[in-house]
């Protein structure tokens, strides 16, 4: 069993509105799984179903091969996008309460909290009220509370919003560390650079349907268009450009290069090898820049959403 979480054709209706339409995902164990989609696509609904906050109308969700049950609550840590804490409750008291709701014993929770508070150097916050903390500080507490019970599955909905770059980095490192320790992470976000950085797998949900999923590298392979950025130096660039244009599809280029005599995006047919292009180019001019254009997650996201 290599999948920690499997959703099979999950559907959910809110009155006449279908929030999820037969969405299936499979989250491999130990992966960081990016759940992507525009606003209102149905990501949060799916996450809530995984958390047993709402029940699916159709389909099933399996965790570690078993249908979701009340006991699974302690195996999941969830950081919702709309987050908050009891404002007038003290930090320590509150963290203990939330940990106990997740099924930890009081002493166990205390030990774990001490570990995290020491790690983040916030031990002196224990007796502060949440309303005395800044937003970013409260977010830290929220993060600790989410991961405290060492769940198998961590679900983060926009985890970096509200953090400054330093703390965002700190959180990112912690997420990676938790993955190393065996946790599986579902990661829902709009910020494609963090997807690029963190995710191994993604699923894209658009208008209640899953439109794309799989290993990020596979998807990129699937989306790449065999286009190469080409930067050349030549004394008679016009002739060179003409010769390239005669042989290949050429698109305008925007990349930055120190030599801009010839700057092109060249697309080759599937039968052509990049080596053919390269040897053609070296025969014509001095090659300074030769890079395959790999679609970013952002490009894939926008392209997929537009096409649907």
């Amino acid at each position, binding site marked *: 069993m290599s999948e920690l979480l499997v959703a099979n054709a999950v559907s959910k209706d*809110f*009155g006449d509105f279908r929030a999820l339409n037969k969405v299936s995902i499979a989250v491999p164990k130990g992966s960081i799984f990016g759940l992507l989609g525009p606003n209102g696509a149905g990501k949060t609904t799916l996450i*809530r179903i995984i*958390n*047993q*906050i*709402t029940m699916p109308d159709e389909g099933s969700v399996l965790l570690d091969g078993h249908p979701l049950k*009340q006991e699974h*609550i302690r195996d*999941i840590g*969830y950081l*919702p996008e*709309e*987050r*908050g*804490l*009891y*404002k*007038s*409750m003290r930090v320590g008291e509150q963290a203990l*309460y*939330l940990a*106990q*709701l*997740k099924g930890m014993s009081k002493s166990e929770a205390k030990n774990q909290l001490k570990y995290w508070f020491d790690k983040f150097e916030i031990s002196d916050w224990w007796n502060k009220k949440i309303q005395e903390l800044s937003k970013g500080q409260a977010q830290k507490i*929220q993060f600790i*509370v989410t991961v405290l019970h060492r769940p198998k599955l961590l679900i983060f909905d926009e985890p970096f919003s509200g953090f400054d770059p330093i703390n965002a980095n700190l959180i990112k490192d912690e997420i990676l560390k938790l993955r190393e320790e065996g946790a599986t992470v579902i990661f829902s976000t709009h910020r494609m650079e963090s997807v690029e950085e963190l995710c191994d797998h993604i699923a894209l949900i658009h208008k209640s349907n899953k439109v794309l999923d799989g290993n990020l590298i596979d998807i990129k392979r699937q989306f790449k268009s065999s286009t190469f950025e080409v930067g050349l130096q030549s004394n008679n660039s016009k002739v060179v450009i003409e010769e390239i244009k005669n042989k290949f599809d050429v698109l305008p280029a925007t990349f930055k290069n120190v030599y801009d005599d010839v700057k092109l995006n060249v697309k080759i047919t599937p039968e052509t090898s990049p080596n053919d292009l390269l040897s053609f180019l070296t025969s014509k001019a001095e090659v300074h820049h030769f890079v395959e254009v790999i679609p970013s997650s952002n490009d894939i996201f926008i392209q997929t959403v537009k096409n649907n």
Partner: protein
Amino acid sequence: MNHLSLIIKREYFTKVKNKSFVIMTFLSPLIMIALISVVAYLAQLNTNKKRTISILDQSGLFTEVFENTDNTTYNYTNDATVEEAKAIVKEDEQYGLLYIGKGNLDTVGETVRFYSEDSPSLTVISSLENKIERKLRDLKLVANGLNAEEIKAAKANVSILQESFDGQKSSKIDNILKLAFGGIAGYLLFMFIIIYGNMIMRSVIEEKTSRIIEIIISSVKPIQLMMGKIIGTSLAGVTQFAIWIVLLAILSTVVSIVFGIDLTAAQGQQQELIQQAMDSSTMQNEISLAIQSFQNLPIANLIIAFLFFFIGGYLLYSSLYAAIGAAVDNETDTQQFMLPILMPLILAVYVGVFTVIEDPHGTVSTIFSFIPFTSPVVMLMRIPFGVPMWQQVVSLLLLVGTFTLTVWFAAKIYRVGILMYGKKPSYKSLMKWLKY
């Protein structure tokens, strides 16, 4: 459930440790006692005030009618004219002038006037009227040939002793006692629902606005959270009520001992009237009867019924409060939903006050003691008067049935509502939520 007890504990302790809650707990009895003391003090001042009333009796029929009392001095000014007498009364700052004109037994009554600077108190006037009427009646009887002995002998006092078919004796005081029991129980429930129902509602809204709700319900079921909130808040309420009662008892004793203010003097004037109406010997009789009837009250039934109806009624309403809290984003949006909750509650109290007192087993009271939304209050008021067991049981079953239904209904709204933000919900959308 472990989760439930955790939630109850948290709800309880956050309520109890809350500053304004603590302040209210200790300040309310103080304020209440202070207010009652002031009213009692003023009332005492009022009744203790010495007043002088001048009497100008031109008929000469009422020479010995007005006897001085502790508070009132009567001053006969029989030789003066009305104008002179008025001037004297005004100058001496007396309470007023009672003028009785010339006339025979039939006509003199119409000549009586009372002149005063400010309008006189009702008790003074009615006591004067009483005295004149009594004297006139006696004089008329004498004119008809009776002597004073015969008149005195003709006076009779009747106090009807009531007895039910199974031999339970009761009296007027007994009825008052029952009313007090029922009234206090019903009113207590009413207050409890309003105060702590609102508290539950606010705490649901707080969870929504602070956005912690989603974290909580990823750990517990919404219905657990809702029930935990209701129970936790109620326990805090019971604590507060208990402290209030103890404090009130202590404070009122302290105040009446230290300051010598009789707190019952707040109702001093009514007491005076009651005392006037009742002969002292029958009074004593009634008191002993009252003690006896207190022992005859269905105490066990009262306590058990109180517990069941109190809990049932409270849960019924508080689950609705919780549902409202879940449906809205902020307190101002609650208004449109509050009315349907308050209406039956207020109706219940009105029915209790106006019909149960008049006729505890009449059609109206009986019907309303079966309708679940009014039954807790009305039934609690009826029970001291003896309600057949089958009625209590049926009413309670109806209440439990409705309560189960409203909790289910509230839980549905709660489950959907706590995750809904932004839109102010209408009744239509609430009905839609039930199907989610």
